């Protein structure tokens, strides 16, 4: 990976319109995909590390409920849900984006969350209660930046107007809720079917 590939995500966060355009039309998809996975990985690492190592002033965690594997799920599942829901909707709404493009754009939008939160893991160990305000301020700033990038990314990938993008985003969030509901329903049904067969098996075993 050359230095341009490392610089590109940072370039994109500061020049989103140009950046997302180049991302879709100018750059190699395979390299973009690699960078996307790397961004996802660093976000997971950031979250795990901030749970464990962020300063006591901003971070009280229950060691009994801490699970680094769940942090992976907390990052991957929302991203996958978002991409699936967005793709399903935009194919019906004349969006020009392919699934891969949506996924890459979403991952690149996550960069501010890593870029701002990662240094704060270390910095938050050297602040007092009053200075913790800056911590929360920059966290909210990171989230707002992320939302803005997701908005621009979506608009560029699908070649939408701004108002249509906002509408799609709202619908996507609703669709994510539907997907979550269907998944729960599916899993609970599977569970019951498995339970049903295992009970039948037990009955047979007890009888003969």
């Amino acid at each position: 990976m050359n230095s341009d590939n490392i610089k590109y995500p940072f370039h994109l966060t500061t020049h989103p319109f140009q950046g997302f355009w180049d991302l879709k039309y100018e750059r190699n998809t395979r390299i973009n995909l690699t960078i996307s996975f790397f961004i996802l990985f660093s976000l997971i690492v950031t979250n795990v590390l901030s749970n464990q190592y962020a300063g006591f002033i901003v971070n009280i965690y229950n060691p009994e409920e801490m699970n680094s594997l769940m942090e992976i799920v907390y990052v991957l599942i929302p991203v996958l849900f978002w991409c699936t829901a967005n793709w399903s909707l935009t194919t019906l709404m004349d969006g020009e984006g392919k699934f891969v493009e949506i996924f890459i754009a979403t991952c690149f939008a996550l960069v501010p969350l890593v870029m701002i939160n990662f240094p704060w893991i270390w910095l938050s160990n050297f602040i007092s209660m009053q200075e913790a305000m800056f911590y929360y301020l920059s966290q909210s700033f990171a989230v707002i930046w992320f939302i803005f990038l997701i908005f621009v990314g979506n608009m560029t990938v699908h070649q939408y107007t701004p108002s249509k993008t906002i509408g799609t985003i709202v619908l996507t969030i609703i669709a994510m809720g539907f997907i979550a509901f269907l998944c729960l329903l599916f899993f609970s049904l599977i569970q019951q079917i498995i339970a049903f067969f295992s009970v039948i098996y037990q009955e047979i075993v007890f009888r003969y």
Partner: protein
Amino acid sequence: MYPIKKRYITLLTVIILAFGTGIPVVKASVDQRSYNYSYWADAVPAPPAYQAVRIIDGERLGIEPLSEPNDFHVSPNRYIYVADTGNNRIIILDETFDVVDVIETFFIEGSKETFSSPQGIFVNDEQHVFIADTGNNRVVHLDANFDLIKIVEQPESELLSDQFTFRPLKVAVDYAGRLFVMADGVFDGFMEFSVDGYFTTFIGANRVRVDPIEYLWKRFATREQRSQMVNYVPTEFTNLDVNEQGFLYATNVDNSDDVIKKINARGDDILRREGYFSPIGDVRYTQTDGSSRLIDISVADYEIYSVLDSRRGRIFTYNGDGHLMYVFGGIGNRLGEFHTPIAIERYDDYFLVLDRELGEITIFTATLYGQTLNEAVRSYEQGDEELAHQLFEEVVNMNVNLEFAYTGIGKSLLQQDQYEQAMHNFEQSLDQNNYSKAYLLYRNRLLRDHFNVIMSTILGTVSVITIIVVYRKIAKRKRRVLVEQ
């Protein structure tokens, strides 16, 4: 080979038991019923702070059995006054739990009077006895020799409606002689009477709590339907006590965060709720069991107060900041468990619990753990940081899970300028505010101590960078000059 070994072990056990039982202090034993709540609202086992040592009832006292006693009070000279409601009498025990006197009658201007189901009793510093003579709708004030001083009967005031009947249930008197009465069917708070026995005002009413769903129903109901519905009225109090400074401590069954109140002279609630949870009794409970039903409160010295949960028979003790110190008791048939606990009293290292149906008093004494913890909190309240530190250390050695003790240790370390250790202790008690204070002091000291090094590093770096930049510019210019030539 094998049996011999076994015999040795038996012998060893016997020796340990023989020597072990000689220790005079009540030792903490493994007791599943004793617990405390962690920061994460988990019930964590804790050593028992109090142990039941004796039960006294009418038979053991050599008098007629108690019949539904409802209240008792310990006077400052450690005499115990029991309101034996069913037998219409007052029993007085001395500090060794022997009967001193039984009052069944007193005289009003020469005529003999009796009590009618007295439900509340209070004794002030001068051994004056105040009895809520519920059945006779009056409060009787007797002096130390049980001669009548005054009687408070149905008050007349424009604050009271015409249908009001005065049924006093519980009484308390502050150091100035003001009388506070918890009366049946009064929603406006406690009734306050002056020293002469005149009704002055209501104090400390509970706030009306409106259920949002019920409120919505009422908005849609017609006037006729609404008149059929239950009115919103503030909950009544369940009990009260007065501390040395004259603050009222009261309990109610509101199902909210302020079931315990500390009421000042203006009627405001000034209880400190700085603990991990508001003092409400049990933090974790199932929906079917319900929250704790606090029916009595006993304030001891140094802001420590205890409440009695009648639902599960447990006694919760909090310090002045609202940290849960310890829990003991329960419903059951063993010693130290109750059937229908109705009143508690706390003095020195003793704890008395009155059981209404069984008509008996269970006496608890503090274990070594309880004594140390009490003493630690007392010396902390007194401002004796040094002793508090030492005692909290001892407490923590007996129960590492008592989180608020680390705050105590941390605060005294902070006083002694040991910021780093203080920070460590505040981290143990998950106390971010105090940690932040300690950290700021620590950081300031660190910066001040290493001011020379830090400043020279910064200045050095800046000058080095400037030199490099300037040098580069000069070099570039030279090159350009060369090129142009």
